Protein backbone atom coordinates (compact mmCIF):
# COMPACT_ATOMS: atom_id res chain seq x y z
CA UNK A 1 0.00 0.00 0.00
CA UNK A 2 1.53 3.30 -1.06
CA UNK A 3 1.38 6.56 0.89
CA UNK A 4 -1.17 8.02 -1.54
CA UNK A 5 -3.43 4.99 -1.11
CA UNK A 6 -3.16 5.23 2.67
CA UNK A 7 -4.03 8.95 2.58
CA UNK A 8 -7.02 8.15 0.38
CA UNK A 9 -8.03 5.47 2.87
CA UNK A 10 -8.03 7.88 5.82
CA UNK A 11 -11.39 9.59 5.08
CA UNK A 12 -13.03 6.17 4.79
CA UNK A 13 -11.65 5.17 8.19
CA UNK A 14 -12.76 8.48 9.65
CA UNK A 15 -16.26 8.08 8.23
CA UNK A 16 -16.55 4.51 9.48
CA UNK A 17 -15.46 5.60 12.96
CA UNK A 18 -18.02 8.37 12.89
CA UNK A 19 -20.74 5.96 11.84
CA UNK A 20 -19.97 3.61 14.71
CA UNK A 21 -19.44 6.19 17.50
CA UNK A 22 -21.94 8.96 16.71
CA UNK A 23 -25.43 8.48 18.11
CA UNK A 24 -27.41 10.93 15.98
CA UNK A 25 -28.89 9.27 12.85
CA UNK A 26 -28.40 12.49 10.87
CA UNK A 27 -24.64 12.48 11.45
CA UNK A 28 -24.47 8.75 10.69
CA UNK A 29 -26.26 9.27 7.37
CA UNK A 30 -23.95 12.18 6.50
CA UNK A 31 -20.89 10.05 7.31
CA UNK A 32 -22.35 7.33 5.09
CA UNK A 33 -22.71 9.84 2.25
CA UNK A 34 -19.11 11.00 2.74
CA UNK A 35 -17.84 7.41 2.59
CA UNK A 36 -19.81 6.90 -0.62
CA UNK A 37 -18.26 9.97 -2.23
CA UNK A 38 -14.72 8.94 -1.25
CA UNK A 39 -15.20 5.41 -2.56
CA UNK A 40 -16.74 6.71 -5.78
CA UNK A 41 -13.68 8.89 -6.33
CA UNK A 42 -11.42 5.96 -5.49
CA UNK A 43 -13.17 3.73 -8.05
CA UNK A 44 -13.08 6.47 -10.69
CA UNK A 45 -9.34 6.94 -10.22
CA UNK A 46 -8.70 3.20 -10.45
CA UNK A 47 -10.50 2.73 -13.76
CA UNK A 48 -14.12 1.98 -12.78
CA UNK A 49 -15.63 5.36 -13.69
CA UNK A 50 -19.03 3.92 -14.62
CA UNK A 51 -19.58 2.31 -11.21
CA UNK A 52 -18.16 5.40 -9.49
CA UNK A 53 -20.68 7.67 -11.17
CA UNK A 54 -23.45 5.14 -10.53
CA UNK A 55 -22.48 5.05 -6.87
CA UNK A 56 -22.81 8.82 -6.58
CA UNK A 57 -26.11 8.97 -8.48
CA UNK A 58 -27.86 5.94 -6.97
CA UNK A 59 -26.50 5.79 -3.43
CA UNK A 60 -25.53 9.34 -2.52
CA UNK A 61 -28.23 10.91 -4.68
CA UNK A 62 -31.17 8.67 -3.91
CA UNK A 63 -30.68 6.34 -0.97
CA UNK A 64 -28.97 8.74 1.46
CA UNK A 65 -31.46 11.49 0.66
CA UNK A 66 -34.30 9.04 1.37
CA UNK A 67 -32.61 8.12 4.67
CA UNK A 68 -32.39 11.78 5.65
CA UNK A 69 -36.02 12.30 4.64
CA UNK A 70 -37.17 9.41 6.83
CA UNK A 71 -35.03 10.59 9.75
CA UNK A 72 -36.60 14.02 9.42
CA UNK A 73 -40.11 12.54 9.31
CA UNK A 74 -39.48 10.27 12.31
CA UNK A 75 -37.91 13.17 14.23
CA UNK A 76 -34.80 11.21 15.20
CA UNK A 77 -32.44 13.44 17.18
CA UNK A 78 -30.12 10.91 18.80
CA UNK A 79 -31.22 11.94 22.30
CA UNK A 80 -33.44 8.96 23.11
CA UNK A 81 -32.11 6.25 25.39
CA UNK A 82 -32.35 3.51 22.79
CA UNK A 83 -30.31 5.59 20.32
CA UNK A 84 -27.40 6.02 22.72
CA UNK A 85 -27.22 2.67 24.53
CA UNK A 86 -25.29 -0.01 22.63
CA UNK A 87 -26.85 -3.37 21.98
CA UNK A 88 -24.55 -6.38 22.64
CA UNK A 89 -21.20 -4.53 22.24
CA UNK A 90 -18.93 -7.48 23.03
CA UNK A 91 -20.65 -9.75 20.52
CA UNK A 92 -20.68 -7.01 17.88
CA UNK A 93 -16.97 -6.16 18.15
CA UNK A 94 -15.91 -9.81 18.41
CA UNK A 95 -17.90 -10.75 15.30
CA UNK A 96 -16.62 -7.74 13.34
CA UNK A 97 -12.94 -8.20 14.22
CA UNK A 98 -13.02 -11.96 13.64
CA UNK A 99 -14.69 -11.56 10.26
CA UNK A 100 -12.26 -8.80 9.25
CA UNK A 101 -9.26 -10.99 10.10
CA UNK A 102 -10.76 -13.88 8.14
CA UNK A 103 -11.34 -11.64 5.14
CA UNK A 104 -7.80 -10.26 5.32
CA UNK A 105 -6.44 -13.80 5.50
CA UNK A 106 -8.49 -14.97 2.53
CA UNK A 107 -7.61 -12.00 0.29
CA UNK A 108 -4.34 -10.36 1.21
CA UNK A 109 -2.33 -12.69 3.43
CA UNK A 110 -3.17 -15.80 1.42
CA UNK A 111 -0.64 -14.78 -1.23
CA UNK A 112 2.26 -15.42 1.12
CA UNK A 113 1.02 -18.45 3.07
CA UNK A 114 2.79 -21.70 2.08
CA UNK A 115 0.58 -24.64 1.25
CA UNK A 116 -2.26 -22.56 -0.17
CA UNK A 117 -2.72 -22.01 -3.89
CA UNK A 118 -2.11 -18.37 -4.67
CA UNK A 119 -2.93 -16.51 -7.85
CA UNK A 120 0.41 -17.07 -9.60
CA UNK A 121 0.27 -20.81 -8.93
CA UNK A 122 -3.30 -20.89 -10.21
CA UNK A 123 -2.20 -19.03 -13.32
CA UNK A 124 0.62 -21.48 -13.90
CA UNK A 125 -1.68 -24.46 -13.42
CA UNK A 126 -4.56 -23.26 -15.56
CA UNK A 127 -2.65 -21.25 -18.13
CA UNK A 128 -5.23 -18.46 -17.97
CA UNK A 129 -3.46 -15.21 -18.66
CA UNK A 130 -6.35 -13.12 -17.37
CA UNK A 131 -5.54 -14.01 -13.76
CA UNK A 132 -3.13 -11.22 -13.07
CA UNK A 133 -2.76 -8.80 -10.24
CA UNK A 134 -1.37 -6.06 -12.48
CA UNK A 135 -4.34 -4.67 -14.36
CA UNK A 136 -2.28 -1.88 -15.90
CA UNK A 137 -0.21 -4.47 -17.74
CA UNK A 138 -3.33 -5.71 -19.54
CA UNK A 139 -4.41 -2.15 -20.22
CA UNK A 140 -1.10 -1.19 -21.75
CA UNK A 141 -1.17 -4.23 -23.99
CA UNK A 142 -4.68 -4.15 -25.32
CA UNK A 143 -6.64 -1.08 -24.39
CA UNK A 144 -6.59 2.66 -24.62
CA UNK A 145 -7.37 4.80 -21.52
CA UNK A 146 -11.07 4.93 -20.60
CA UNK A 147 -11.82 2.14 -23.05
CA UNK A 148 -13.16 0.01 -20.21
CA UNK A 149 -15.90 2.48 -19.33
CA UNK A 150 -16.72 3.14 -22.96
CA UNK A 151 -16.98 -0.57 -23.75
CA UNK A 152 -19.11 -1.25 -20.68
CA UNK A 153 -21.48 1.62 -21.48
CA UNK A 154 -21.81 0.66 -25.14
CA UNK A 155 -22.33 -2.97 -24.21
CA UNK A 156 -25.09 -2.19 -21.71
CA UNK A 157 -26.98 0.42 -23.67
CA UNK A 158 -26.63 -1.13 -27.11
CA UNK A 159 -27.39 -4.71 -26.21
CA UNK A 160 -30.29 -4.14 -23.86
CA UNK A 161 -31.83 -0.81 -24.78
CA UNK A 162 -30.97 0.15 -28.34
CA UNK A 163 -30.83 -3.23 -30.08
CA UNK A 164 -33.19 -3.69 -33.02
CA UNK A 165 -34.85 -7.11 -32.71
CA UNK A 166 -35.49 -7.26 -36.48
CA UNK A 167 -31.86 -6.77 -37.40
CA UNK A 168 -29.78 -9.90 -37.91
CA UNK A 169 -26.67 -10.23 -35.81
CA UNK A 170 -23.51 -12.29 -36.01
CA UNK A 171 -25.03 -14.68 -33.49
CA UNK A 172 -28.02 -15.26 -35.81
CA UNK A 173 -25.72 -16.01 -38.74
CA UNK A 174 -23.73 -18.40 -36.58
CA UNK A 175 -26.92 -20.14 -35.48
CA UNK A 176 -28.07 -20.59 -39.12
CA UNK A 177 -24.67 -21.94 -40.03
CA UNK A 178 -24.81 -24.47 -37.21
CA UNK A 179 -28.29 -25.56 -38.27
CA UNK A 180 -27.09 -26.06 -41.85
CA UNK A 181 -24.09 -28.11 -40.67
CA UNK A 182 -26.31 -30.24 -38.50
CA UNK A 183 -28.72 -30.88 -41.36
CA UNK A 184 -25.82 -31.76 -43.68
CA UNK A 185 -24.35 -34.30 -41.28
CA UNK A 186 -27.71 -35.97 -40.84
CA UNK A 187 -27.97 -36.52 -44.57
CA UNK A 188 -31.09 -36.40 -46.75
CA UNK A 189 -34.36 -37.27 -45.07
CA UNK A 190 -35.41 -40.90 -45.29
CA UNK A 191 -31.90 -42.23 -45.85
CA UNK A 192 -31.94 -44.72 -42.97
CA UNK A 193 -35.51 -45.83 -43.39
Amino acid at each position, binding site marked *: *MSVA*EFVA*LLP*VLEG*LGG*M*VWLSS*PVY*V*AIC*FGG*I*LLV*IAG*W*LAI*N*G*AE*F*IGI*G*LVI*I*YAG*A*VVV*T*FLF*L*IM*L*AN*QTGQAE*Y*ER*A*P*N*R*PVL*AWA*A*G*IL*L*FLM*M*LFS*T*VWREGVPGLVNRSQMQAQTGIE*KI*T*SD*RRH*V*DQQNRAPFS*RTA*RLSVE*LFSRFFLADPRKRTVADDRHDELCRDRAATKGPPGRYQ
Partner: protein
Amino acid sequence: MTILVISALLFCTGIVGFCLRRNAVLMFIFSELMVLGAVVASVGYALLWAEEKGQILGLVLLTTAACEAAMALLIIGRIYRTKRTLDIKLLSSRGEQEE
Protein backbone atom coordinates in the same frame (compact mmCIF):
# COMPACT_ATOMS: atom_id res chain seq x y z
CA MET B 1 -5.36 -5.15 -2.94
CA THR B 2 -6.21 -1.92 -1.09
CA ILE B 3 -9.70 -1.90 -2.51
CA LEU B 4 -10.32 -5.39 -1.10
CA VAL B 5 -9.17 -4.21 2.34
CA ILE B 6 -11.60 -1.30 2.05
CA SER B 7 -14.44 -3.64 1.11
CA ALA B 8 -13.64 -5.90 4.07
CA LEU B 9 -13.57 -2.85 6.36
CA LEU B 10 -16.95 -1.66 5.05
CA PHE B 11 -18.56 -5.06 5.48
CA CYS B 12 -17.19 -5.66 8.98
CA THR B 13 -18.09 -2.16 10.16
CA GLY B 14 -21.58 -2.80 8.84
CA ILE B 15 -21.81 -5.95 10.94
CA VAL B 16 -20.48 -4.18 14.04
CA GLY B 17 -22.91 -1.28 13.65
CA PHE B 18 -25.82 -3.57 12.89
CA CYS B 19 -25.22 -5.50 16.10
CA LEU B 20 -24.49 -2.37 18.18
CA ARG B 21 -27.54 -0.24 17.36
CA ARG B 22 -31.15 -0.49 18.48
CA ASN B 23 -32.56 2.13 16.14
CA ALA B 24 -34.23 0.56 13.08
CA VAL B 25 -33.09 3.34 10.73
CA LEU B 26 -29.48 3.04 11.87
CA MET B 27 -29.58 -0.74 11.56
CA PHE B 28 -30.78 -0.36 8.02
CA ILE B 29 -28.04 2.18 7.21
CA PHE B 30 -25.45 -0.32 8.44
CA SER B 31 -27.00 -3.09 6.35
CA GLU B 32 -26.64 -0.77 3.35
CA LEU B 33 -22.99 -0.37 4.35
CA MET B 34 -22.61 -4.14 4.11
CA VAL B 35 -24.13 -4.10 0.62
CA LEU B 36 -21.70 -1.33 -0.31
CA GLY B 37 -18.85 -3.55 0.87
CA ALA B 38 -20.08 -6.33 -1.41
CA VAL B 39 -20.30 -3.89 -4.34
CA VAL B 40 -16.77 -2.62 -3.73
CA ALA B 41 -15.48 -6.21 -3.47
CA SER B 42 -17.03 -7.21 -6.79
CA VAL B 43 -15.67 -4.10 -8.52
CA GLY B 44 -12.30 -4.60 -6.83
CA TYR B 45 -11.99 -8.15 -8.12
CA ALA B 46 -13.12 -6.92 -11.56
CA LEU B 47 -10.30 -4.38 -11.56
CA LEU B 48 -7.81 -6.88 -10.19
CA TRP B 49 -8.53 -9.57 -12.77
CA ALA B 50 -9.30 -7.20 -15.66
CA GLU B 51 -12.87 -8.48 -16.08
CA GLU B 52 -15.90 -6.33 -16.86
CA LYS B 53 -18.40 -8.83 -15.47
CA GLY B 54 -17.67 -7.77 -11.91
CA GLN B 55 -18.57 -4.19 -12.75
CA ILE B 56 -21.88 -5.31 -14.25
CA LEU B 57 -22.55 -7.35 -11.10
CA GLY B 58 -21.74 -4.24 -9.04
CA LEU B 59 -24.24 -2.22 -11.04
CA VAL B 60 -26.94 -4.86 -10.52
CA LEU B 61 -26.14 -4.89 -6.79
CA LEU B 62 -26.42 -1.10 -6.65
CA THR B 63 -29.84 -1.15 -8.29
CA THR B 64 -31.04 -3.96 -6.04
CA ALA B 65 -29.85 -2.09 -2.95
CA ALA B 66 -31.66 1.07 -4.05
CA CYS B 67 -34.96 -0.81 -4.56
CA GLU B 68 -34.50 -2.59 -1.23
CA ALA B 69 -33.83 0.73 0.50
CA ALA B 70 -37.03 2.25 -0.88
CA MET B 71 -39.14 -0.68 0.31
CA ALA B 72 -37.48 -0.96 3.73
CA LEU B 73 -37.74 2.75 4.44
CA LEU B 74 -41.43 2.61 3.54
CA ILE B 75 -41.92 -0.23 6.03
CA ILE B 76 -39.93 1.59 8.74
CA GLY B 77 -41.97 4.75 8.22
CA ARG B 78 -45.17 2.75 8.50
CA ILE B 79 -43.97 1.11 11.73
CA TYR B 80 -43.11 4.51 13.20
CA ARG B 81 -46.56 5.86 12.34
CA THR B 82 -48.32 3.00 14.11
CA LYS B 83 -45.97 2.25 17.04
CA ARG B 84 -44.42 5.75 17.56
CA THR B 85 -40.97 4.25 18.22
CA LEU B 86 -38.09 2.71 16.29
CA ASP B 87 -36.53 0.79 19.20
CA ILE B 88 -36.03 -2.77 17.99
CA LYS B 89 -36.11 -4.28 21.49
CA LEU B 90 -39.33 -2.51 22.35
CA LEU B 91 -40.93 -3.45 19.05
CA SER B 92 -40.00 -7.11 19.43
CA SER B 93 -41.25 -7.23 23.03
CA ARG B 94 -44.53 -5.62 21.96
CA GLY B 95 -44.85 -8.18 19.18
CA GLU B 96 -44.37 -11.03 21.67
CA GLN B 97 -47.01 -9.52 23.96
CA GLU B 98 -49.50 -9.21 21.12
CA GLU B 99 -48.97 -12.86 20.22
